[in-house]
């Protein structure tokens, strides 16, 4: 027993362990502050501790970028693919922490729990993307989800927050139930929950229907997390109700980790069934893009609009999933496109939500599109930043959003899915309408009331600068990231 314990390579788990201890310290911090009866709450300390934890974990993950190894008897797998996502998720979460400082401050004593929950959910994510076993994936997914359910409703006075959290939790619980049932069925059919063994089990088993039912049930769980249509109903309410930094966190980190796992499951376990799920992905991609974009056009609430926009972006990513080539060896451009797109997507969403949070600093909550009227000239730097993020989301060069879309649609065309690419670009043109409407409000309409001055916020400014730099860097000099993504993909299959 002891030798088995020692044979586990704990050093591979350093990022996870660092996160775990950071989260526990944060909980402790909350208790200390409560005992001290401090009126200010542990917002600043919590943010610093979270950043420290995420940073050290990120450093550990970065040190693993050459590592290819399994541990815990093969239940966890550290390879460049998981490392890519670890760093992406940790980076996205760190940016979300920077966005959180003011909102968490308003939570007063709850701020400690806020950061602790955030780090716990990141822990769930990094476990999930390194998992090579469906049960570990499930544990990671639930760790992440439970924390995020609470974070959505953490503003206890907010009615829409409570509504969003309840909806998210109830539908999420259903999805988890579907998924665990699917895992059970797969275990029954193939005799294993290991991703690789499932693949060989599926090859041999010929009980077609049951096999497909099991796969469907598992996929439903993931599709719920990425908010693919028709599993998206929770997203607009949860996004609108949650504190804005948490909305950003859901849009970037939750989505990225869910896509990472989905990619791994599809490419490792379910590749033998590609003929079945590729058309499903095709249909879901079309539905998700179209519903997301059309609904976003009619939103007057800016957070709700960005929620539908993030649904639409999940649709573009599904285009890449529908373009996966089961016959390709390791270097499938479709998978690399997802990796690249998610990096760009993280940066531009953090940026867009960051500007909204910044604009809310003048004592009025940013809710509707009407409220950004005239903001472009009143706050020139924020205005330019928001315009850049909107153009990037719309996929207009020289931003990363364009190259991301180019990558995704190239992979579709390379697989002969020209109609899918055409539907995709038409969606992209439709989406330009609502992204551009934000710039219309900011620059081309006058505000009825004088806009207040905004207090300068260092953490927000840092997050926005990072996002802005990243969006341009990936739009102008993407080669490095493409190389990294190409390499990460090699270790997937």
């Amino acid at each position, binding site marked *: 027993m002891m030798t088995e314990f020692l044979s586990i390579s704990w050093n591979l788990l350093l990022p996870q362990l660092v996160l775990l201890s950071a989260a526990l310290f944060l909980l402790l911090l909350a208790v200390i502050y409560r005992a001290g009866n401090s009126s200010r709450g542990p917002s600043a300390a919590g943010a610093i501790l979270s950043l420290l934890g995420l940073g050290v974990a990120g450093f550990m993950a970065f040190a693993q970028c050459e590592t290819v190894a399994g541990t815990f008897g093969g239940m966890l797998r550290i390879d460049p693919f998981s490392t890519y996502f670890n760093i992406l998720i940790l980076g996205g979460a760190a940016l979300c922490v920077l966005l959180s400082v003011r909102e968490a401050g308003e939570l007063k004593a709850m701020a400690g729990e806020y950061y602790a929950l955030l780090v716990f959910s990141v822990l769930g994510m990094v476990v999930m993307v390194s998992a090579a076993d469906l049960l570990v994936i499930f544990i990671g997914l639930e760790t992440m989800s439970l924390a995020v359910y609470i974070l959505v409703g953490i503003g206890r006075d907010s009615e829409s927050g409570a509504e969003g959290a309840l909806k998210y939790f109830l539908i999420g619980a259903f999805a988890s139930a579907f998924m665990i049932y699917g895992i059970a069925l797969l275990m029954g059919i193939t005799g294993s929950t290991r991703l690789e063994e499932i693949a060989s089990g599926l090859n041999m088993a010929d009980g077609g229907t049951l096999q497909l039912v099991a796969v469907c049930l598992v996929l439903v769980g993931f599709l719920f997390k990425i908010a693919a249509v028709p599993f998206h109903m929770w997203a607009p309410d949860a996004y609108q109700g949650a504190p804005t930094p948490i909305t950003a966190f859901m849009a970037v980190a939750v989505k990225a980790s869910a896509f990472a796992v989905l990619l791994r499951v599809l490419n490792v376990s379910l590749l033998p069934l590609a003929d079945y799920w590729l058309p499903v992905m095709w249909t879901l991609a079309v539905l998700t893009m179209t519903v997301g974009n059309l609904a976003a056009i009619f939103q007057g609430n800016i957070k709700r609009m960005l929620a539908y926009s993030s649904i639409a972006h999940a649709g573009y990513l599904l285009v890449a999933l529908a373009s996966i080539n089961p016959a390709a060896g390791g*270097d499938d451009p479709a998978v690399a496109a997802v990796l690249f797109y998610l990096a760009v997507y993280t940066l531009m969403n953090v940026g867009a939500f960051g500007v909204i949070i910044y604009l809310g600093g003048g004592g009025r909550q940013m809710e509707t599109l009407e409220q950004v009227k005239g903001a472009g000239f009143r706050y020139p730097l924020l205005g330019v930043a928001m315009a850049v993020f909107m153009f990037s989301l719309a996929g207009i060069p020289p931003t990363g959003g364009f190259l991301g879309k180019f990558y995704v649609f190239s992979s579709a065309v390379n697989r002969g899915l020209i109609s899918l690419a055409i539907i995709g670009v038409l969606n992209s043109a439709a989406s330009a309408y609502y992204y*551009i409407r934000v710039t219309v409000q900011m620059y081309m309409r006058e505000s009825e009331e004088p806009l207040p001055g905004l207090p300068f916020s260092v953490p927000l400014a840092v997050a926005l600068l990072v996002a802005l730099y990243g969006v341009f860097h990936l739009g102008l000099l993407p080669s490095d990231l493409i190389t990294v993504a190409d390499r990460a993909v090699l270790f997937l299959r």
Partner: protein
Amino acid sequence: MGFAEISQSDILSWVLFLPLAFAGLLAVLPGNAKALLRWTAFISSATVFVVSLDLWFCFLPGEAGMQFVIHKPWIEQWGVGYHLGIDGISLLLVLLTTFLTPVVILSTWSGVEKNVKGFLILLLVLETGMLGAFMALDLVLFYFFWEVMLIPMYLLIGIWGHERRIYAAIKFVLYTMVGSLLMLVAFIYLIWIGQQSLGYYTTDLIQLYRVAVPYHAQFWLFASFALAFAIKVPMFPFHTWLPDAHVEAPAAGSVILAGILLKMGTYGFIRFAMPLFPAASQAFTPVIMTLAVIGIIYGALVAMVQPDLKKLVAYSSVSHLGFVMLGLYTLTTTGVVGGVYQMLNHGISTGALFLICGILYERRHTRLIDQFGGLSSRMPLLAIFFLLATLSSIGLPGLNGFVGEFLILLGTYGSAHPGYVFFAATGVILSAVYMLWMFRRVMFGPLDNPQNQKLADLNIREVLVLLPITIMMFWMGLFPGMFLDRITPSVEKFISRYNSKLELAQPALPSSSPLEYRVVFTEPESK
């Protein structure tokens, strides 16, 4: 020229990015120092023009291929390169851009008072976008600049435009986006076909010229390229965004839009759509020539009944760009050279007309023709410039417009479709009708509107705005040879490439049935 420190090979990059660098300089200047901003922007754009003159003097006139080429890897994984170069066709369009920009900036000194800094920055960014689109020899790079142009123009219309500016701005963006995104899919598909034929991914235009695209694919690729470019030209029936955009845009925006942006469409045809897919282009020739002729006559007829000065000039653009398209599709050296020359002429003469519209609007805050009348007695200087611009637009011999139109008509007559000459010539007559009628209503007749009694004539700045353009009208009209010498070799190369690829495509026709072709394209990619 005294630019020894700029190495010859980098000159295109300098011309391309100088405006952007100057825009960055403007960004750090204080926003309320309007005079400083205006002078800086003017001197900057004038500097860019002077630097770009180096291109004119160092250009080898007899050479048909690309010159000043810069070719560096950019996104190597996708075969995307930073590939710039100009030939006789793009040389003059580049110079037109660098020439018009300082003129436009000078013209906005009194018209734009709100957010001067943003306005000037956007104009300079727009200049980089336009120059890049004319210089790019790589599909992705071209698309980059093509879309980069969109944003400043959208903001110029939307922020500094007139009453219905937001509607016009959004319409402009959405029209262009739909076309260009479909073209993007076609780009990707073409790159894929190139990979099949060459064995590696490349987005390099010169290499893709060599790819023999199967006919079935050519058809759809050409259709989507042509749609994107036809929207930009704009060809009938895709022109409906143009009158809105022109009328609502500020004067400077209209000048840039008409003078340069519309040329992107026709330039796209001659640089991309036609040489890449000659067989499909050939099949589409009757459609395009018919639409061009419809555009010529329809634009002229609609222009005739416009009560709004800017709308009239906008519809005249539809008509004139129809001439350019007709010239390109004659596929005779004379006709294509005429088409290219007409692109420049239209930039000059319509640019001048929109500048004059802007000058009138600044004084009277109306664009309606019946609000004017008899202005020539109050504004004799303006009357002279206006008359010259009008005559240049009509195509009076001795001015630039004549050369282009005459070459196009000559080329059409010598082409495979001489019948179109009749309709095109009708368009020439109609343009004289509506332009001269408009001029008479604005400038002559009784000066009966009391608001027109006190109008001041041009000031020195406005004369300096109009003078260079007017000089160019005479120069290009009296000495077309020095321009045509540079255009002709490149056009001849364009036509010979077009014809040789056309011959190549013929025997390939039977073997490119959809079925067989699909087999080729579902093969797993091999690296």
